[in-house]
């Protein structure tokens, strides 16, 4: 599914294609390799090497594109994401043009469950001269940890081209599961001589379980050769519950091999940013911490941080693997006191009836039942 800047770029590209002459199918590709310093919400800052690529086959009426991105963090953990998109659009009629898009994507990070999404989108473009607008709606499903949810999106936008570059404005309402939010974003793309600059600024509001706030990103590409550029970028981006990514900040530097100004190059812009490694809170609120402190007579008090959770449970060999509900001990904090003997134990936690998982920071191992269990050492 295309969202944010890639979606906007695709919308503009399609609208421009609508006023262009049909051309033969062409293949374009881009590869970016570089280093990023990332700070995901709920994580410590980390460096990461990144590799991303995109390939696109297109003519004036349709296109298909595949993208992949991989990040290897300092810890050695790997985050991988990939998407496959295709679109086709109708003939223009008095400046109007219809477009149909489908997108399939998946991502995985370390030992967390895989994430996937599938969406279909219809969009109506109107273009006149060097400006245009669109409205669109999308339906889809996403999958995470054995649960799938519907995605509903509808939005509108407008763009205008000038000799200096392109300005676009967009607003998008997204609803998935019990999460809903509206993003409004303005973006400018400038292309001067051998330098491209992309700047975006947005805000999230009308949000339920997806946070609120302002976000922005900037990226500059210096093309040192026809097919070789140096990309510097940074900023803060919001969570993307539809695609299963959390919010984060980053700065990155990369080398780009590919065709300047191609749709592939425009669309990959956000993909080269650090992939967000864990699902957002919409389907399974993140269990970001588990503290254990000794209580009386061999009992231990467990305190769990789970932002946005409404129900938290824990089980382990010390509960005979029977789920035990935790009590609320503050905002996003849950607590329970249980008898736990000295030694090594295995355990799991789950939030809002989701998949049994292991809190961040705890070692985990294969549980023989298709999941993982955490390792707890009580001394």
């Amino acid at each position: 599914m295309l969202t944010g800047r890639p979606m906007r770029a695709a919308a503009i590209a399609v609208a421009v294609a609508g006023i262009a002459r049909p051309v033969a199918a062409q293949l374009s590709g881009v590869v970016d390799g570089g280093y990023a310093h990332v700070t995901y919400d709920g994580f410590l800052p980390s460096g990461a090497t990144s590799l991303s690529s995109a390939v696109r086959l297109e003519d004036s009426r349709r296109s298909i594109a595949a993208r992949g991105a991989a990040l290897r963090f300092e810890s050695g953990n790997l985050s991988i994401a990939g998407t496959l998109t295709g679109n086709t659009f109708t003939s223009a009629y008095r400046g109007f043009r219809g477009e149909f898009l489908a997108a399939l994507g998946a991502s995985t990070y370390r030992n967390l469950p895989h994430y996937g999404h599938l969406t279909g989108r219809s969009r109506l473009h109107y273009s006149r001269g060097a400006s245009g607008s669109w409205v669109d709606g999308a339906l889809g499903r996403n999958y995470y940890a054995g649960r799938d949810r519907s995605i509903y999106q509808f939005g509108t936008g407008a763009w205008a081209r000038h000799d200096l570059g392109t300005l676009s404005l967009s607003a998008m309402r997204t609803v998935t599961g019990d999460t809903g939010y509206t993003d409004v974003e303005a973006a400018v793309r400038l292309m001067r001589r051998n330098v491209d600059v992309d700047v975006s600024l947005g805000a999230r509001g009308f949000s339920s379980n997806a946070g609120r706030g302002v976000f922005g990103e900037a990226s500059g590409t210096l093309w040192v050769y026809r097919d070789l550029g140096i990309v510097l970028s940074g900023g803060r981006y919001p969570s993307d519950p539809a695609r299963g990514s959390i919010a984060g900040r980053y700065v990155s530097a990369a080398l780009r091999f590919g065709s300047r100004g191609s749709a592939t190059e425009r669309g990959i812009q956000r993909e080269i940013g650090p992939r967000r490694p864990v699902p957002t809170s919409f389907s399974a609120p993140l269990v970001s911490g588990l503290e254990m402190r000794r209580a009386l007579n061999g009992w231990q008090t467990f305190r769990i941080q789970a932002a946005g959770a409404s129900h938290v449970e824990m089980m382990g060999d010390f509960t005979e693997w029977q789920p035990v509900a935790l009590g609320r001990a503050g905002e996003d904090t849950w607590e329970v006191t249980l008898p736990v003997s000295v030694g090594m134990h295995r355990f799991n936690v789950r939030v809002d009836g989701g998949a049994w998982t292991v809190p961040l920071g705890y070692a985990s191992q294969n549980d023989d039942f298709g999941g993982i269990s955490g390792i707890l050492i009580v001394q």
Partner: protein
Amino acid sequence: MKIRHSALVLGALMLGTRLAAQEPVLQARLDAATYRSVSVLLDSARVAGIPTQSLVSKALEGASKGANGERIVAALRRLSGELAAARGALGVESSAAEIDAGATVLHVGVEPRQLARLRAARPRQSLTIPLGMMADLVARGVPTDSAGAVVLALARANMRDEDFVAFRRNVERDIALGAPPAAAASVRVNFTTRANALSADGPQSHQGSPPRPRKP
């Protein structure tokens, strides 16, 4: 002969009593066919001297996680083998908790000979915490041979259980700060054993702020 026969009968009666004590929880949470298979496995384990508590726990875990009977029995068979191997490596006098921790360590890929070396280095003290720490390190990405060597070095330095726990906590923090797992464990063990060697009072807990490992 008669005495041996009596002992077997007595043993069987004791086993029966223990199984009966476990029946309610297992019977309540497993279907009849799975319960029968699990009971046979538990009996076999008892005959072989393998502690059954972790087998029962694994069966309950599978039931709570919705695994089918076939999968639960397969998991118990695997665990039973690992428990037997752990008991063999750690010695027949090892406690149930040690054997359970040893099986976990074998499950993540540590060689049985590393368990035997650990027992030799710490013959009279419990290995539950050191083995738990070894499993934890491997699960955090420390290679199995490195994790084994690290725990062995700490054991040979006469570290106490609380030192092991403090060590694991420090490695966990270093990894969270971005250090590669193997380097974090290696640097920490060098620091800990050196500090221990320099300490005139013997082993101590080292939770201060030693130099952090450099990033790669």
